[in-house]
Each structure stands twice: as C-alpha cells, then as structure tokens.
C-alpha cells in the first residue's frame, strides 16, 4: 500500500495544470459552435490530453497507454471544471470498437473526425421488445445486391436527432441462431427511410440527454458498412458495452460535497438541516458509502495497473455507484422538504433543479447499461459461480 505518485507523474500533473491554465475555454463544449469545439479538441489531441493513446495515423496523439496518466488528466480537467475531450457515444464506444474490429479504411475514415467532434454518433441497440435480452433484437437487414435493406425500430437512442451517424445492431442472418445472426453496421442518419421521433421521459424537458425512437423503412446501406464479419455483431457489441459500463462511473464525491453545502444553507423553522441529527445521520451513512466506492475505485485501478483480475470485486461497481448517486439525490430532496419537488426553474427552486434531474438520471442509470437485476445475475453467475437459470423447455 503506497498512495503516492512517482515523480514523473507529479511532473505530468503540473504540465496538465499549466496547459489548462493557458488554454481552458470560457464556456462548455456543449454550447460551443462545432468549429470552435473542433479547434479545442484538436489542441487537446496535439498536446496529448485527448485521444492520447490512439495512433497518429487515425487522428490520435500516438502515446503509449498509461492508466495513471489517464487518471491524472481526468482529475486535473475535473478540477479545472472543464471536460476532457468529448463525453459522447462516438469517442467512448465506437472508437474503441473500430480500433479492435474495424478495417484499415474504416479506421482512417471515421476515427479522426469522431475524436474532433466533427461527426456525432448515436447508438442503435435497444428495441421495444429487446432491452435486457438485447440479442433477441428483430430489426432486419436483408441482403440486396451490394447493399443491405434495413427495416425495424430502435428505442432509447440518445441524441439521434443531432447525430450525423449511427452504429447499430441488425439481424442479417435470419436463419442463424439468436446470437449468431447479428451484424454491426455504420449508417448515415440522412439516408432516406429513417424517421426520428423524440421520446419524452420522466425528466420532462430538463437534463442533458435527449432520447428518441428511430424507425427504419427500406433503408439502404452498402455491405461495406459492416464492422468485423457478418454475423459477429454480438461479439463486437459486447466490446462496446464493456466500454459503456466503464464510462458510467459518476463522481459521487463531488455530489456529496454539494449536498453538504445544501444542508448548511437549507433551513426549516430557522434551523439549518445540518443541525438536525436525523439528516446528519443519513449524511454520515452516505459519506461512508462514498468513501467505500472511492477507495474501491483506487483498488480497481491498482488491479488494472498490475494486470491482475479483480475477480468479483470488479463486477459490483456499476450496481453500487448508481444506487449511491440516487440515494445522495434522495437525501437532498428530503432536506428541501416540500420545496424539494420544485422544477422547471420555478421560483424558490434550489440549485436550478439539479437534484431532481440528478435523481431521475441516476434512476435511469440504475436501469441503463444493464439493469440492476442483470448486474446481480452477472455478479452471482460470473463472480460467485452460481448456476444459471435453466432454459425453459421448448413447447
């Protein structure tokens, strides 16, 4: 056990800090015009703070992978209050998948513009009848000459309305068994036959994410758009999902500090919430859980650095973190009492509605990226080697 960083990492941290002081933009990337966003991302790539380990030939910085450098960059960008690179489905899920399974041409064509935010991607996985049981998906891609013709429907498609491209799973081999008939395709969103409809969720109009349904009627796409081999889409998608689960770790420590601030300022009958032993006890319970997850993260990081498998301990993070975030928001809402439900930037609303948004999105994350119940199946079957549920006998 040694929690100090070696000297070269301390130097690296100072370098990142100096870069941010010199170049940090005034406003968030989300609000910046695309050209400005691309300039900022390109500058980060040149200095090696974004796409650090992606080969130069594909538009990255071309450095050797070093997990501690990644951690330090994330910490310093967080500290500076600005996003490192771009948190979007293209860079976090498609790029690693292309690097592992794409052709040379696909890598050269898509990775660079995706990293620079010039092309935005959405993910076409879930369908109305295929959520947890994703491999049962029914959207079909029928072979027709050099093309596939797609028919079907996707749901829970974040940012489909603002994306230029979609990576999606379709059934190309109708005769094959469930998992073997799926292919992974890349598709331009302006192809004729695609209709995007917004999906209104329980968060209403607030929040950072927009979900959609996407309908496909005779959508034509060249067969060269397949990533990897035909029929191997399930295996390839699992690479992508692995990247998604890694990206679902929210910053509970920062949210807890925000809750503590709220408990100092929020008063009822003239007394601050922090002075209530009941609220304080709940806060301390949450603080212990936050500390557990923080140090659990450090333990998992150490396992990665040593190339050791963390075993079952590595499978519990998503389940525990998502519930913890929901519970932190729940205490904040309780502390605000009858004002806790205020929303839509109504008068008296606290923190511009952050806590209700955080509560509803945390609930979404408990479900999204593999529900809590699916996580418990994974933990017990892969982590504890308990027997799988027997398949029902065929009628």
């Amino acid at each position: 056990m040694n929690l100090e960083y070696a000297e070269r990492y301390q130097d690296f941290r100072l370098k990142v800090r100096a870069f941010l002081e010199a170049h940090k933009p005034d406003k968030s990337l989300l609000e910046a015009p695309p050209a400005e966003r691309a300039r900022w991302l390109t500058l980060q790539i040149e200095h090696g703070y974004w796409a650090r380990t992606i080969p130069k030939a594909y538009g990255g910085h071309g450095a050797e992978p070093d997990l501690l450098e990644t951690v330090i960059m994330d910490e310093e960008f967080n500290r500076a209050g600005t996003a490192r690179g771009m948190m979007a489905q293209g860079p976090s899920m498609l790029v690693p998948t292309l690097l592992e399974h794409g052709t040379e041409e696909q890598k050269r064509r898509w990775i660079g513009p995706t990293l620079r935010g010039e092309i935005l991607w959405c993910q076409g996985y879930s369908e109305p009848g295929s959520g947890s049981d994703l491999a049962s998906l029914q959207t079909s891609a029928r072979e027709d000459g050099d093309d596939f013709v797609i028919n079907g429907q996707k749901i829970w498609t974040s940012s489909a309305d603002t994306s230029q491209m979609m990576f999606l799973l379709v059934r190309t081999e109708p005769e094959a068994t469930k998992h073997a008939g799926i292919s992974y395709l890349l598709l331009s969103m302006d192809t004729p036959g695609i209709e995007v409809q917004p999906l209104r969720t329980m968060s209403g109009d607030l929040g950072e994410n927009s979900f959609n349904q996407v309908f496909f009627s005779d959508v034509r796409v060249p067969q060269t758009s397949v990533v990897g081999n035909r029929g191997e889409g399930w295996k390839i998608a699992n690479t992508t999902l692995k990247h998604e689960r890694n990206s679902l770790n929210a910053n509970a420590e920062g949210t807890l500090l925000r809750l503590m601030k709220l408990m100092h300022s929020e008063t009822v009958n003239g007394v601050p919430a922090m002075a209530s032993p009941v609220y304080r006890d709940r806060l301390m319970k949450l603080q212990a859980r936050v500390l557990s997850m923080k140090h659990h993260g450090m333990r998992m990081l150490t396992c990665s650095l040593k190339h050791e498998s963390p075993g079952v301990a590595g499978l519990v993070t998503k389940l525990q973190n998502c519930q913890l975030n929901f519970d932190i928001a729940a205490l904040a809402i309780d502390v605000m009492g009858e004002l806790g439900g205020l929303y839509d930037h109504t008068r008296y609303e606290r923190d511009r509605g952050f806590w209700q948004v955080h509560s509803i999105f945390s609930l979404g994350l408990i479900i999204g990226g593999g529900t809590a119940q699916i996580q418990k199946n994974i933990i017990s079957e892969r982590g504890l080697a308990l027997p799988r549920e027997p398949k029902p006998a065929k009628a």
Partner: protein
Amino acid sequence: MDFGLSEEQLLLEQTLRGFLADRVPITRVRALRDEDCPNDRAIWRALAELGMTGLLIPEANGGSDLSLLDAALVAQSLGHAVTPTPYLSSAIMLPIALRDLAGAEPAGWLNSIASGELTFGVAVTETFSVREGAGLALSGGKLSGKAMMALDSCSADQLLLAIDDDTLAVVRSGTAGLTQSRLSTIDSTRCLAELVLDAVTPEAVFEGAHDAIARMLDAGRIALAADTLGACEAMIEQAVVYAGQRKQFDRLIGSFQAVKHLCAEMIAELEPARSLLWYAAHSFDALPAEAPLMACHALAHISEIAREIASTSTQVHGGIGWTDEQNLHFWFKRIGVARHLLGGPEFLRGRAAELQQLTAAA
C-alpha cells in the same frame, strides 16, 4: 500508486488461514463454548509462535513492528474463523496504547505478549458509554468502581483500564479488591466481563494518556471492523456453497434469481467495504490525521452491512441455517455482539460528524 496488499501481507493471511482451518476448526470453537472463558491459552501461544501476537510490538521487544493493516488482516482472519482469542485487546489495543506512553513499560509486558506468555484485558466502554452506574475513580492511589463489557477480561493476566479520557491504569488479575466476572452474551466466542474494584492497588497509573486512549480506540475500531468483515466473508462463502448444493423443485436453489440475487447483494456490499477497511487501516500509520474519521466510518459502515449479511446468509440456508448443528449462528452472533463493543453505528456516525465540525451548525 499501489492500493492493494503486498506479497508479504497475502502470505501472512494465507499462513494464518491455513493454521486456523487446521488447528481451530469450528468443532474446536464449539467445544470452547462450554468453558468458563473461551480464550484458550493454547491458541494464544500458537498464534505467538506464528509471530501474530507481536505484529505491532517493536523489534526490541521481540515483535516485528509492522503496520495496523497487517494486524487488521490477522483480526479479519480470526473473525473469518470465529476464533476465541484476546487478539483485539492484547495484540492490538494494548501495544498501541503503550506506544503513546513514553517510558511506560516497566514490566516487560510487550515481550511477554510477543512470546505468548501474557494476555491483557482492556476496559474502555465507559469512555464512550456509561450505563448501570459504571465508572472508575482513583483516590489516594486506590482504584474503585465498575467497568462494563471489558474486553477479554475474565481470564487475562493483566487489565488495562481507562479511568477517564486522560488516565489509564494497569491492574493485575486477582489483586485484592478486584472481582472479574464474565458477562455471558449470545456470542460464545468472545470473552466480555464486568470488573468491580474496591480500593484496588494498580500496578501502574498513566496520566496525560489522552492521545494513547484515542489512538487505542481508533486501532481497536479498525481491528473490530476487520473481525466483522472476516465473519461476513465466511457467512457469504457458506451461503454460496449451500446455494450451489441444495436442490428444491428439482433445481439447485442458487439458480433461482430470488436466491442468487441475495448472494450478489451480499458480495456487492462486502467488496467496497473491504476497500474502505484497507484505507482506514492504512491511514492509521500513513495518514494519522485521517484515522479517527476513517475508524468511525469503517466500523459503523461494516457493522451495518454485517447485520444485513448475517441475516441474509442465514435466510439463504433456510431452516437448516437456524439450527445449532449447522454452526452458522457462531458467525451471526459474533457479528451481532461486535456491533456495539467499541461504539455502535449511531454513536460512531455522530462522532464522525463531530470530527468534521458538522455539529457546530446548530
């Protein structure tokens, strides 16, 4: 950056677990519940031969001068095997207290603990919780009063007593005016006693022991959290084995999601708590300013998840888990009694808030 156990620590744990499985199996623990005191001297001497009792004792006194994380791993293994032994009091709390009392070791106590010839009981309950009119007073060099739930104190050779939060005293077992009587709890694997003193002459009195008492309590809380975590590990292991063997409705019960999800929930609570415990134990030596808060959080949190795990593991076993014969209750009871020995979760969370000056808000 390395947040994990060293090769040496893993080896220590492996050695001890092998020894306990071999020499102190559950049949031995069962037999000891019929003794007047379960703290069997043969086990204590064998732990000393393995070097376990001297981990926190300086090399000059025959110990190995290691860290609290090492000692916590031992405590965890002892909880895992529900071993009756005065490790918490004699090998952890006493050496830590003496470390902070310069020149306070007149009688070779540390050497004798490292060699397994001596045991110490520790009475500190009244520093955080006074019930039944308990409390000690020193008057004219004589000690009088009562101490409750004193750790490992019915058969120990010496007793370390907290008179108040700034004064410690050592009293020899069997001294005139001292009555040591065991208080039987549901947990037959731990010795707890009531000490009644009537003008007892102490072997030693230490004034200005405020820091020593605080450090001893922090170390004790971290070690007790480790003991409870080890007991939780054992209860989860037993539940998983049982769920993978027991059949009902022509199926292994572990294939039912109603059962396997209970097992997943237990391990999902345990593993992050293990990370918290490692950090708390590490902080005790490396980041001492953080240790009081970490000790409170680690023990409170682990006590809370342990109650759930103890209940859930028993339920996974069904009716057989509730029988005496299945032995699972030894772990359930160890966890249940440990929950309040050095401050229960509510007290510890209140203390955690105080340490961060959050109670000043009113």
